[in-house]
């Protein structure tokens, strides 16, 4: 399989990279770029663990060819905040106990980020709709919804 070359912006930095044309965005991030924050859960677009933002919109990175992000801006959890300087959403998830096993957390936080960027003061129902594509099998969602509400109040 002939590799293809594409350029895009990853977590604020321009990048040009070669990869096989059938590679998903998820595989590119994890296996070629070593960004392991983005998780593979189901691999078929049902769990949302692989959520990243493309041009500010939440997408399942397992449902896109990496080639499709040519010229676009991709944000993964690694680009959202650092240990020293976490995003308000990350602080809020910790403070509200919205993390148990943590596997859904990167995707959950990025879905919440896409929501708050578009709608800084969402209603509870809007929060639920925004994270409907992210499954969490630990928390029962309540703490997650409260964490997103708390983050929106801080902004």
């Amino acid at each position, binding site marked *: 399989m002939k590799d293809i070359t594409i350029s895009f912006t990853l977590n604020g930095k321009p990048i040009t990279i070669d990869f096989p044309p059938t590679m998903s965005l998820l595989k590119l991030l994890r296996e070629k770029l070593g960004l392991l924050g983005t998780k593979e859960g189901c691999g078929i677009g049902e769990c949302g663990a692989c959520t990243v933002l493309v041009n500010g919109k939440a997408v399942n990175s397992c449902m896109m060819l990496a080639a499709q992000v040519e010229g676009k801006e991709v944000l993964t959890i690694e680009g959202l905040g650092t240990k020293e300087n976490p995003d308000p959403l990350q602080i809020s998830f910790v403070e509200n106990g919205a993390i148990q096993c943590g596997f859904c957390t990167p995707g959950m936080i990025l879905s919440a980020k896409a929501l708050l960027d578009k709608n800084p003061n969402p209603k509870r129902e809007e929060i639920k709709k925004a994270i409907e594509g992210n*499954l969490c099998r630990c928390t029962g969602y309540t703490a997650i919804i409260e964490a997103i509400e708390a983050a929106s109040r801080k902004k």
Partner: protein
Amino acid sequence: MESIEYFRPSTLDEALYFLKENGDRSRIIAGGTDLMISLREEKLNCDFLVDITHLDELKGISVRDAYIDIGPLTTHSELSESEIIKRDAPILAKAALSVGGVQIRNIGTVGGNIVNGSPAADTLPPIVVLEGVLTVKSATKTEEIGIENFYEAPYKPIIKNDEILTNIRIKKIENGERFLFEKLARRVSLAISRMSLAIVLKANEEKMIEKIKIACGSVTPTPVRIRSVEDLLMGKIITEDLADKASILLGEEMVKTTGIRWSTAYKKPVIGNMLKRALFELIGF
């Protein structure tokens, strides 16, 4: 699979010309939410992936007289958020919003939904009752096909491998028309529809039906209007008795077109009741 090449045409014409030469060995990617699953399962038998996702010529929503033109690469999110669709075809906005989750709606396109041709596709029943007409282009010709004639079987649209769906034209909801889209699934979110129902109708003050169009998802193998039920209701005053007759007939029609299945014991009464409830909500009896 190992030798698949990726081709990204920069215009529709370039895509059509490529397909003229290589259509039988190509698969088109128009979003990717269905295709990526085939790719993952290594069930994608082709030599070329033709990525048209970025072609602006195939995007956008516009109104012309009583019709709306929808570019097939419009995502489900764009469809559900479009002011035009929300105002003039709200049943399609509601159906698009019921597809998958946000992440799927941001990638999946209405054209992909149509060409994939799943009997459970959420946007199809509304497009049927809004009398959708599809424009299909090849390098040499352009054709218009009514949505009901677009499939020979589930997942088998009649579009040829050198053709691309380039436009979806639907009728606006007219003044005085009542409408409804209802989807029933195993859970509220991220669910494939078990059954869906789209209705557009007109009734006068005596509750007499003057016009009615009904289509269902996951009930008929391909998206079609249920004309026997429409005929039963047309020109009649809605009563509970008539609604019961229509709901029984709809269940029977489903069995007639899809046969008896493991799910029939559930689906037959439930699709009927969905219709009865819809008639009650829209007209009352």
